[in-house]
């Protein structure tokens, strides 16, 4: 009697397990990314095979995303976690990953995809001291604003996904090829489009635009922040404005998560103008994809440079 029940129970459990396995096999790969740019690109690489979700939204301060407990169940279910790396998310991702109890996505394991691996970081501090600010010990992490950075991100994601799901290698590679072909074409267009930005001098609130400026030949004059992550002091602002006047910088970039007060004051003082530029997908309502992000930033800057009369001749 007991053995009969036992065998029935075992059969039932087996059925449940098989069903669960079956259901699981048909499910899409669940990818969580720290930032929306990664989600956009991962969705392109993964195509129909994946569901992608970004924890942060484009209008947030990527360095100060709050540790919301609602992120924990998402990370718990995630099959892959994609991060920017270079300590970009150091204040929130590590604590969340630990709490998620998902060993797959722990740094160093295959489910943890760090897209900075192929990037040659800029502004790597030679002197690691907190006196230099608090944010970028591994170098500037804002490489997503350079479309060539987008190429490296896409390649790293494709490799990472292939490592985790080798059965879908062909799809990932094919999708990557399509993405890169589009990106290559775009980059050619953007380089032509952005020619008037050559030599345009600008400041920004945070040191976000290094890679972007280097790509399109713009001239970074300084940041409103005293150091990355440190709010400006009065003397720093005086010095900055003096510097802007000396070199003739008119453009003040403001990232959406910083207040407009100080940038507006500076622009008024130096007779320049403020341009609000997103640093991530979704940072502005028009910016829905990674391609939108680069295109939007170039076009907004062109407009501003023309208004300010600092646009170069093509």
């Amino acid at each position, binding site marked *: 009697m007991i053995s009969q029940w036992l065998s029935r129970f075992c059969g039932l459990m087996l059925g449940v397990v098989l069903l669960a396995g079956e259901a699981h096999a048909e499910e899409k790969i669940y990818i969580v990314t720290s930032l929306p740019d990664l989600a956009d690109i991962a969705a392109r690489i993964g195509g129909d095979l994946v569901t992608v979700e970004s924890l942060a939204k484009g209008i947030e301060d990527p360095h*100060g995303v709050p540790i919301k407990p*609602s992120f924990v169940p998402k990370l718990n279910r995630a099959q892959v976690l994609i991060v920017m790396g270079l300590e970009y998310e150091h204040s929130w991702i590590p604590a969340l990953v630990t709490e*998620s109890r998902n060993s797959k996505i*722990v740094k160093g394991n295959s489910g943890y995809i760090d897209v900075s691996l192929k990037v040659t970081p800029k502004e790597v501090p030679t002197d690691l001291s907190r006196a230099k600010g608090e944010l970028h010990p591994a170098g500037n992490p804002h490489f997503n604003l350079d479309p060539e950075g987008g190429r490296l991100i896409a390649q790293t994601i494709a490799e990472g996904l292939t490592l985790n799901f080798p059965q879908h290698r062909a799809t990932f590679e094919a999708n990557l090829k399509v993405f890169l072909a589009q990106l290559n074409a775009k980059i050619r267009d953007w380089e032509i489009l952005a020619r008037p930005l050559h030599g345009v001098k600008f400041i920004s609130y945070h040191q976000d635009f290094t890679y972007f400026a280097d790509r399109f030949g713009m001239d970074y004059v300084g940041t409103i922040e005293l150091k990355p*992550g440190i*709010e400006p002091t009065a003397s720093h602002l005086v010095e900055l404005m003096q510097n802007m006047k000396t070199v003739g910088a008119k453009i003040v970039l403001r990232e959406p998560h910083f207040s407009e007060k100080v940038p507006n004051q500076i622009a008024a003082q130096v007779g320049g103008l403020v341009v609000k530029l997103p640093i991530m997908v979704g940072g502005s309502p028009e910016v829905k994809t990674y391609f939108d992000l680069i295109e939007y930033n170039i076009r907004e800057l062109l407009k501003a440079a023309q208004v300010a009369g600092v646009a170069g001749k093509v």
Partner: protein
Amino acid sequence: MRTQLQLRVLIGLIILAFGIVGGLGPVFAQNPGAPAASEVENLKKQMALMEEQLRQLRLQVDKMAGQPVAPGSAGPPAASTADPALEKRLGEVENKADAALTATKKSFASQFNPSLSLAIDTIGSYKSNAQGFNPGDGTGTRDAGGRVNNSRPAGADFNLRTAELFISADVDPFTRAYAVINASADAANGDEATMGVEEAAIVTTRLPYNLTVRGGRFFADFGTLPHRHDHDLPFVDRPPSIDTFIGGESQTNGVEVSWLAPTPFYLRASGTIGNKLGADSREGVTNVNSRPIKGLTYLGRLQTYFDLNDDHNLELGGSIVETPNAEDITNSGRFERRLVGMDFRYRWYPLGSGVRQSLTIAGELLHDIGEADPVNGGRRTDVFGNPVRQGAWGGYVYAEYRLSKQWRPGFRFDYFQLQSEPLLVTNPLTGLPASTLNATGHRTDNRTWSPYLTWFPSEFQRLRLQYNRSVRGNAQSADEFFLQWTVFLGSHSHGFSERE
């Protein structure tokens, strides 16, 4: 990691060589159009491509090898390359790559060192007068350190409250561990800073079914602020209600099992068995003696969280601690300790500007329904020594508004009841001394109002000004001023449970 790097450098070199010798053309000239129908086809294509590349390489090599040495250049050794400049550059690149590889191969004994951080928390304070509890006449009785219920005696004082070393690292693929070593002023040592192990715990990292086990000494999972370290509190002092009911931090020696429910929303449960609850527990229960199983302390907590929308969220939790039969080594009496707590935290944190502007409203409500006497230790008795079992309420609520990245004003209100202070009155019927407890059932009310202002010059430095107006039962009310200065060296993060 290192092999990965080597592999990447190697692949990079190969690509570089291909690029230089064969021209980049063939590598990037693939048609990026329609995705391949199947993997096999894709592989075939790749093979074909590689064959083509190889063929072209061979052609080039053949061409170079077949090139006649220029008639005039008999002097130099017969290098078979066509372009010495190219050769030189290749050599340079190789040297650089070799140097980089060698650099990554260096090993240091310190490579496996854990991460370290140090918190320094110093407080200057002034208190108008001492506040007593027990006699109810304002004079107060003090413990060995001259304090009553952790409130400092009257007068001005500088206090190095914390010099806290936080050490953490992975132990192996299955566990991590951390320790918090604190040298803090301790009443038991005449306010001299003494080194103590606040926490030293081992935590599992790979258990199945979303389980985590923590063992050692740790701040037990009870409520929200009881398991925060002093310097991590949103105020200068721990809310007096928590201090009284828990006894400082919720420290325990024991083992905890926590579970994350596989639900789409956040739900976490934990259960702990430990010696006692409270680092400065005044119930006379210590870590020193062993005790019967019933003398251990059992804790449970359930917490959840909801995003009301992108900008508003709510956290709720409930906790219980039960010591069925605690033994007080000083009074050698036995008593039951039971405490239940509920906590909430509402946050308005607008996505785009939360770093600069946000609001937190949070609070905890505690109900002590055990027999333990949180002030004198042991079993709670009235003046006649009869055991008293009577519930007492306590709790706090605070609101903090973030004005900017740097400035955060806030206000806290704290309330707790003490029912263990038999106020000496004369029973009008018998003419004998009686306690208020027996005569009227009255408990004393203790209230504290605390406005405070925090300034963060940076993420790792904080100054805080706080004023406490406290009214303690029948005791004289007191004014307290604090100026707290805190810095953090190293990567300071106690992790998820200590999140802002």
